[in-house]
Every structure is written in structure tokens, then in C-alpha cells.
């Protein structure tokens, strides 16, 4: 059947068509919609779907599933694989039972990420095969193929969509979803392949190296490696760059050789054939020069004179994402054809920047305002990964590195000799993902500082997924509801209090007490995400500015999108009635609309 599918939905479809019985992941753009989609339809199939607390947990759950004989998938964004790298690296040695696929979605250009690392490098690092889909159709087909490949060679298989595949939509041919039992026959004891004692790991490492040649040979003939030899100039392109290259050649009406690559280790026999028949080649791929390096190695052996254009020559950028015009122009330049200059549009400098901003009424904004009043502008604010990082304009985001790092970096700054007040900010989902160990570490090592847990009762940035603090599972079942307050106390914080950030005075007092506490203090600022409340049907009151306004701009500094200013303040229709501006106004000139 033909359907119009988002890339991530196509991957979810592939998981179902492949007969998988377990899917685990942690939300992260651009990977989140895979589990989101599966959790919506799980009840119709014999499949376990979970949002795990982090990517390491997700992968380990998937490993257990595979070892119980059930086809399993773990999903995450590229940086999530760093969190799961520990199980991932050794899993390659131990191998799988039923097929195990790891989806690690890359984000060239950092659309919604802190870096642009290339998952194909992880595949090389771990000696694990990797599939690089170009569009939603390939994403679906490769997902099914990945399970078969995983079982054939007893290795996990990486699927690496990029943002422009995961968040692309296209017409996709779907297949049949098998009915019936999906869970396997259970765990079979086999210590030599399940226990990574040195005595087992040594031979397993050798076995992993030995099977690389077989894996490469099997991948050579995969349908996503397509060779078209026409003349002695050509292009080798991988993943979505293969589509950009095909489009460029059609647009330029250039009838030259093209090798499209979709699997790793890269198909060296096809590359060899290509290299032997060409004198000049351009390698087009996003991010790291993985294919380019393979072409260089093959050329050294079979055609040392080959002229290779790509990242090393400066023809294809190594940072950021590729786009059709960049690829078209790079190929046109190689062929001596005319280049299409990007349109110079005079007048665009008048367009005001529109960075993402915290939503009107967001509890994070209120918490930041109170925190800043209590701690002052000289305090150090270490921050973390989530919606709240967007609050950078409020002066409460001094660092952001990776999940959970706010607390540990804060400790380090204290022990590094800085005596100023420190307030670490971390969201509820991020705290449960990787913040708890940091808090434990801070308590154990006697760190003097404050940790603010900005609890909006959801994983907001990635699309409002539940977590252990919400008391609901991925599939909407009720489960144990974890108390952040109790966790903070259990991990050793000396002073813990909860506060409603919309009550400004109480909130400032709470942050002041936390600042003055002579040890490790925790403030939990609780305000459910406004988007979530709106979806649940909550209707918000609105505020307006009265004639008492003297134009002092104090409310404007709250930087809420609902507050405009033109000599006097004005509250627009975006207001969701949090009421904090009314508490800030020194003239009492902001009131509820009756």
C-alpha cells in the first residue's frame, strides 16, 4: 500500500513489519517520533514499547530482549549513543540472538542538538555495520533488512537516518505487518558469548574482526549500493547526499558515472571498480569523510593517479548539512559548468531575528526570574539540555554541555576554586536521565551549591513524552510515580524544598534560603508545561495593562512573548495567564481580564 509517511514513522512501520517485539528509546530530536508512533499502536500487537530513562538503559533493555530471542530495537539521537556507548562497544563482541537494531539519528547543522557527530564513525569504532537511508522509503526497507543482517552475522546493526530523512515526508510503499506472537523463546545460557570476562572477550574480539570481511561482502550486494559507470569522471555519494547528487546530475544534464552508497563498511569492490574506470571523482557525503577515506585507500592500491575531490580538497564542506544547491554547484564546478549563485536579496537585513523563546506563561521563565533576583547577576548558572536552555536571554544560562552536566560542572567550578554562589538548572526528565548521579556525587563530595530542578512534568522539547516522574508509561499505562523531592533527599541533599514559580515572592524566598544554605541545596520548581495543559483542555485567564502603566519597562525585562511595548506595555493574545508580570509591575498596572 502507498502511504504518505514521515521518515520516523516509516522506521516505526519497518520495526512492525520486521516482527520486532521490543522497542526502547529515550526521546531526542530527530529520533523521537519512532517510539511515539509505536506507543500509539502497541496495544494491537505483541510488542513491548518503552520510554527508558536514558539511552544506556534503552540499549541494555533491547539487548536483553534480543538475548531472550525477541527482535528488538533501541532508538536515540546521535548524542544519545554516547550515553549508550558503554554497552554498545562490548555488545559488538558478545553479539545478538534475535535481530537487534540501534537507530541513532544524526543532526547535521545542529537543528536541535549540541553537536554534529557522525554515527558512521561509531560504526567503524565498534566494527558494527551501519545503514544510511536517503529517504523514508529506504528508511523503512533498511529497518527490515537490518534485522535480517543482525541475525545473519550475530551483530547489532546501526540505522543512521539524518534530520532530513527522519523529518522528511514522502510517498512510501508499505508491506504487511505480521500478526501473532513476537516474543522469543527466552534466554539461553551461553557464558562464552554472554559473559565478557577477559577469557571470553579476547576470542570474541578476534571473531568480530574475522567476520568483517563477510559482512562487507554481504553488504556489497545490498540494493542501496548502486553503480552506474559512464565515462572517466564521476561522483560517489552516500545516504541523502546520493539524492542531491542524482538531482544535480539531472539538473545539469551531466551523463557521468555515479556510485550511490547506503551501507557501511563501504562497498570496497564497487568502489574499486569505480576507481579503476575513472580519473577524477568527487565524493559527496554529509559530515565526516568516511567514504572519502575509503576511496583514498582503494585508490592508493588500484589507481594512485586518481584525482579525488571532496572534503580534503575543500569542495564539499565537512561541517553543517548539505543542500541541493551546494551539491549542484560543487559538481558543476568539477565539470567546468556554470555555477548558480545563491540569490542576493537586498533588504533582508531589516528582518528581525526570531530565535526560539520560552512559551508565554512558561514556568521556566518565572523560575529564572526569581532565581536571578535571589542569586544576582554575578552568580554562576550552570545549565543543561532541554527547553529551559532557550532562557539564555535571561542571564541564567552560563554553561550547557550535555545531559546532566549542569550539576557536575557546578561542583567542579566550586572545587576549582570559585567561591561565588552557584545555581545549577536541570529539567525533570534530564535530571532522571543523567542528573541523579551528579547530585549524588555533589552530596558525597560535599559540594556547596544549589540545584534547581525545573519540573514541568514532561519531556517537553522533544514532544511531551512521559518519564518516571509522570506516573505514566510510553503506552499510557499508569505506573509508579517517582517523587523528585524524595530522590533529592535520598541522594543526600541537605536542604530540599518545592516551590510554585508563579508565586514570585515565595519563589524568591525559596531560592534565597537555598543560596544561603551552607551545603548542597535543591529547589524543585513545579509548573506543568503550558502546551500540555492547553492540550488537556485547560482554558487560561488573560491579563491586561491598565492606564496606571508608567512605561517603566520592568515587565518587558521578563521577556515574555505576550508583553509588547510602545511607550507603554501591552499584553497581546498570546498571554496564558501565569500572572508573574502582574507581580513584577511596581505600579500594580497589570490585572486579570474579567
Amino acid at each position, binding site marked *: 500500500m*502507498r*502511504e*504518505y509517511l514521515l521518515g520516523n514513522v516509516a522506521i516505526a512501520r519497518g520495526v512492525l513489519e520486521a516482527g520486532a517485539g521490543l522497542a526502547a528509546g529515550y526521546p531526542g*530530536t*530527530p529520533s523521537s*517520533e519512532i517510539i511515539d508512533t509505536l506507543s500509539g499502536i502497541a496495544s494491537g500487537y505483541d510488542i513491548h514499547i518503552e520510554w527508558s530513562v536514558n539511552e544506556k538503559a534503552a540499549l541494555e533493555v533491547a539487548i536483553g530482549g534480543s538475548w531472550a530471542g525477541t527482535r528488538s530495537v533501541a532508538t536515540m539521537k546521535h548524542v544519545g549513543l554516547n550515553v549508550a556507548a558503554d554497552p554498545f562497544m562490548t555488545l559488538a563482541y558478545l553479539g545478538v540472538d534475535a535481530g537487534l537494531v540501534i537507530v541513532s539519528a544524526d543532526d547535521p547543522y545542529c*537543528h*536541535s542538538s549540541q553537536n554534529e557527530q557522525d554515527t558512521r564513525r561509531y560504526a567503524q569504532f565498534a566494527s558494527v555495520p551501519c545503514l544510511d537511508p*536517503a*529517504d523514508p522509503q529506504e528508511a523503512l526497507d533498511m529497518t527490515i533488512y537490518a534485522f535480517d543482517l543482525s541475525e545473519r552475522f550475530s551483530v547489532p546493526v546501526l540505522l543512521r537516518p539524518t534530520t*532530513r530523512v527522519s*523529518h*522528511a*515526508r*514522502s*510517498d512510501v510503499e508499505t508491506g504487511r505487518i505480521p500478526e501473532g506472537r513476537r516474543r522469543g523463546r527466552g534466554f539461553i545460557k551461553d557464558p562464552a558469548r554472554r559473559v565478557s570476562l577477559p577469557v571470553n572477550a579476547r576470542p570474541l574480539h578476534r571473531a568480530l574482526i574475522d567476520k568483517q570481511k563477510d559482512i562487507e561482502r554481504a553488504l556489497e550486494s545490498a540494493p542501496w549500493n548502486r553503480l552506474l559507470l559512464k565515462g572517466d569522471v564521476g561522483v560517489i555519494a552516500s545516504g*541523502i547526499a546520493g*539524492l*542531491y547528487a*542524482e*538531482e544535480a546530475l*539531472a*539538473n545539469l*544534464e551531466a551523463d557521468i558515472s555515479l556510485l550511490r552508497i547506503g551501507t557501511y563498511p563501504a562497498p570496497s569492490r564497487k568502489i574499486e571498480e569505480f576507481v579503476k574506470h575513472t580519473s577524477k571523482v568527487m565524493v559527496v557525503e554529509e559530515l565526516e569523510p568516511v567514504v572519502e577515506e575509503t576511496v583514498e585507500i582503494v585508490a592508493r592500491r588500484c589507481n594512485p593517479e586518481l584525482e579525488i575531490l571532496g572534503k580534503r580538497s575543500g569542495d564539499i564542506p565537512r561541517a553543517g548539512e548539505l*543542500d*541541493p*544547491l551546494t551539491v*549542484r554547484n560543487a559538481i558543476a564546478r568539477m565539470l567546468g559548468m556554470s555555477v*548558480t549563485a*545563491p*540569490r542576493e*536579496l*537586498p*533588504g*533582508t537585513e*531589516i*528582518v*528581525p*531575528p*526570531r*530565535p*526560539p*523563546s*520560552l*512559551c508565554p506563561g512558561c514556568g521556566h521563565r518565572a523560575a529564572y526570574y526569581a532565581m536571578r533576583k535571589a542569586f544576582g547577576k554575578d552568580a554562576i548558572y550552570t545549565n543543561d539540555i532541554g*527547553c529551559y536552555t*532557550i532562557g539564555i*536571554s535571561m542571564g541564567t544560562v552560563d554553561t550547557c554541555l550535555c545531559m546532566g552536566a549542569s550539576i557536575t560542572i557546578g561542583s567542579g567550578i566550586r572545587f576549582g576554586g570559585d567561591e561565588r554562589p552557584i545555581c545549577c538548572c536541570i529539567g525533570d526528565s534530564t535530571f532522571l536521565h543523567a542528573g541523579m548521579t551528579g547530585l549524588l556525587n555533589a552530596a558525597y563530595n560535599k559540594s556547596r551549591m544549589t540545584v534547581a530542578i525545573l519540573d514541568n512534568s514532561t519531556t517537553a*522539547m*522533544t514532544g511531551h513524552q512521559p518519564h518516571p516522574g509522570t506516573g505514566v508509561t510510553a503506552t499510557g499505562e499508569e505506573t509508579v510515580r517517582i517523587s523528585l523531592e524524595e530522590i533529592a533527599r535520598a541522594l543526600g541533599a541537605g536542604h530540599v524544598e518545592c516551590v510554585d514559580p508563579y508565586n514570585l515572592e515565595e519563589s524568591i524566598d525559596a531560592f534565597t534560603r537555598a543560596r544561603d544554605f551552607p551545603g548542597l541545596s535543591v529547589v524543585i520548581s513545579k509548573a506543568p508545561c503550558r502546551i500540555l495543559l492547553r492540550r488537556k483542555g485547560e482554558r487560561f485567564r488573560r491579563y491586561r495593562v491598565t492606564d496606571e502603566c508608567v512605561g517603566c*519597562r520592568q515587565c*518587558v*525585562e521578563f*521577556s*515574555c*512573548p505576550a*508583553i*509588547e*511595548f510602545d511607550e507603554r506595555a501591552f499584553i*497581546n493574545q498570546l498571554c496564558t495567564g501565569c500572572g508573574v508580570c502582574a507581580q513584577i509591575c511596581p505600579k500594580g498596572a497589570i490585572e486579570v481580564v474579567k
Partner: protein
Amino acid sequence: MRTSNCDMVIVGVGGQGVILISEIIGRAALKAGIPVRAAETHGMAQRGGSVINHTRLGCVYGPMVPEGGADILLALEPAEALRYGRYLSTGGVALVNTTPVLPTTVTTGQFRYPDIEEILAPLRGFARVIAMNATEIAERAGNPQTANIVMLGAMSRFMPVDEALILDALRDSVPRKYIDVNMKAFELGKAEVSG
């Protein structure tokens, strides 16, 4: 050689319903048996940031419209039309909603929001510009949230897809109780563009 039958770039502010427009077009194309490709903005930019969607009809390549290649630029917000004006082809059509959504950089007084004529003038230099107050028209239809559908109605005049299929896809894409108001929004938008 052309590599797509109709390239569209749909822009606006997170939350305005940019993705829904593209979804409806994609579903209509599927009904018509036309290959379709689209690229969406999810994640961080959706928080009140600037969003861009690429939609390509009759295309079997990548989902992104090359800069300077869009046959149609549809802007749900005026400043966004100019921000992404570089995607529009010479002689292309720009459909622009004239109701601004002020970014916080403007509400906090760091930047000035330009006049509508300042925004449209550079686009008029090389393209056909059709400006309308889609937000106000949507209110007339019965719901200001349907401004995106008003703009879709206007754009339908320029798309190589049968209007009946677009309306079918629209019905499939919105909750049942909002079908009527959306159909009305579509018609009012279409009427803004002379045949």
C-alpha cells in the same frame, strides 16, 4: 532540466500550522498518484522560532527545495517571507499573510519590526506578490486558527493538483468538528486570488 514539477516553500512561526499545510498537500498528491517529498522543522525551532517547510510535487529526489528554485513561497507571517525570500525563483509567486507575529527581539525593543511595504518591496523586484490579511479572513471564516488553511486555499490556484483532491485531503487532516470552518477558510482564501 527541471527536477520537480512544483516546488513550494512554506514558512511561518512555530505553532502557526505550517506542517499541516504540507501534510494536506502531500495527502492530496498521494491520492493523485504524484510523487511527493517534504522536509519539516521539528524540535527547538518550534518554540516560537522561525520555521520552514519544503514541499515538492512530482519529485523523486531529496526533500529540500534548492535556493532560488521555489515556484511558490507561502508565508504565514510577513517577516518570514523576506527571511526566506532567497528560496523563491525569479517569476515565482509569493503568497503572504500580512498579520505580523512579533518576535521577542522586537517586543523587548532590541529590533524594529519593518513596515509591510518594506518587507514586500524586495520580493516584488523579481516575483509576483499576493498579500492578504489571512488572519482576519480566518476570523471571518469563524476561527483565526485557520489562517493557514486560508493561505492553502489561495495557493491551490497555483498547484498542479486537482482541487477536489486537496479538499478531500483537508477533510482527512482536521478533526471532524472543524471541517466546516476549514472548508470555509479554504474557499475565502481561494477567492482572494483572481483566477
